[in-house]
């Protein structure tokens, strides 16, 4: 229904601006209803203003800025309609050290209500997770798990840390 959509749109937009400012350390982001098309349906444009820069269409951002803005939008939708878990597969790959710090702090904050499952190669992201699963293919072609918990190492295999490489 139209009313539900408009209410969702407004609330998500508020969350988007907040999450954007948190992830970028300032600035703002906003969804805007585009011109209605022939069928009268309005699409959504997204504008972003990283701190100190001019407002522009998200498509003109850099690779890392785009990933960060997309994460802010995802978080905004999440805050409106939480889901039992969230899976992020190497979303931190394009981010620099400072942005990885802001990203991991925000995720850690949200993780008191939601289960996050994050696939990563970045050590800084690994360090923030209390539980780590290492996947290895010591037998070529066959995936096996080794569980590495920072708090109490659950496995005696030194390979576990190797798996985290």
């Amino acid at each position, binding site marked *: 229904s139209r009313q539900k*959509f408009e*209410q*969702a*749109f407004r609330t*998500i937009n508020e969350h988007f601006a907040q999450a954007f400012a948190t992830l970028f350390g300032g600035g703002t982001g906003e*969804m805007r209803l*585009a011109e209605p*098309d022939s069928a009268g*349906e*309005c*699409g*959504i444009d*997204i504008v972003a203003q990283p701190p100190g820069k001019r407002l522009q269409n*998200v*498509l003109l951002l850099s690779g890392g800025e*785009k*990933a960060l*803005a*997309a994460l802010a939008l995802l978080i905004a*939708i*999440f805050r*409106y*309609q939480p*889901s*039992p*878990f969230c*899976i*992020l*597969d*190497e*979303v931190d790959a394009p981010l620099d050290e400072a942005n990885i710090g802001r990203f991991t702090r925000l*995720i*850690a904050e949200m*993780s*008191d209500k939601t*289960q*996050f*499952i*994050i*696939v990563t*190669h970045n050590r800084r992201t*690994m360090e923030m*997770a*209390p*539980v*780590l*699963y*290492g*996947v*290895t*293919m010591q*037998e*070529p*072609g*066959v*995936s*096996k798990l080794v569980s590495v918990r920072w708090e109490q190492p659950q496995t005696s295999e030194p390979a576990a840390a190797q*798996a*985290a*490489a």
Partner: protein
Amino acid sequence: LKLRKVDLLGFKSFCERTTLTFSGNGVTCIVGPNGCGKSNIVDAISWVLGEQSHKSLRAERMADCIFNGTQKRPPMGLAEVSLTLVDPELAAAAEKVLAATDAEAAATAGEASAADPDESPSATDAAKRKGPVRHHLHLKPGELVIGRRLYRSGQSEYLINGRVARLRDIQELFMGVGLGPNSYAIIEQGRIGQILSSKPLERRAIIEEAA
């Protein structure tokens, strides 16, 4: 609703039974070298939630999801993934769905049809239901298990608490919870920019899904 466990057997590179357990909140990282099977776990979760497109599972056809062997091990004939969730209301709703399907199956036992296994569990299925019921499936209160199997033959089935059900049953269970294969809550590798770069009307659909 909390995610408790994911079980894989014969799904892509996980030929041996593999279980990941979760506390229901907090952060779990999955790490390992390139090509070791991390994204296969993500694929397994969107598959059991009903993913129908082999493309989004990075496969040429659905059968590519079944372990296809290595230089030392033969291919397997079955891929099976199950998710254990904890939510008292949903667990009760699941039992209701199973009871309704049982009643239906009994009524149609006489008219056993050759319908598509995705659509309606037939009488033979009711018998199968007694089939490989998983002994280890001792459910704790408030728990429910969603499963999916794919046989080399191409037949696929969905399971609720170890008993064959329809995909529609699972989709209805998850309707209000924001859980599904294409949910905004699963960001596959390399797709983080997709939310932004899709067309304006596609972005609208994402917001509508959440609404």
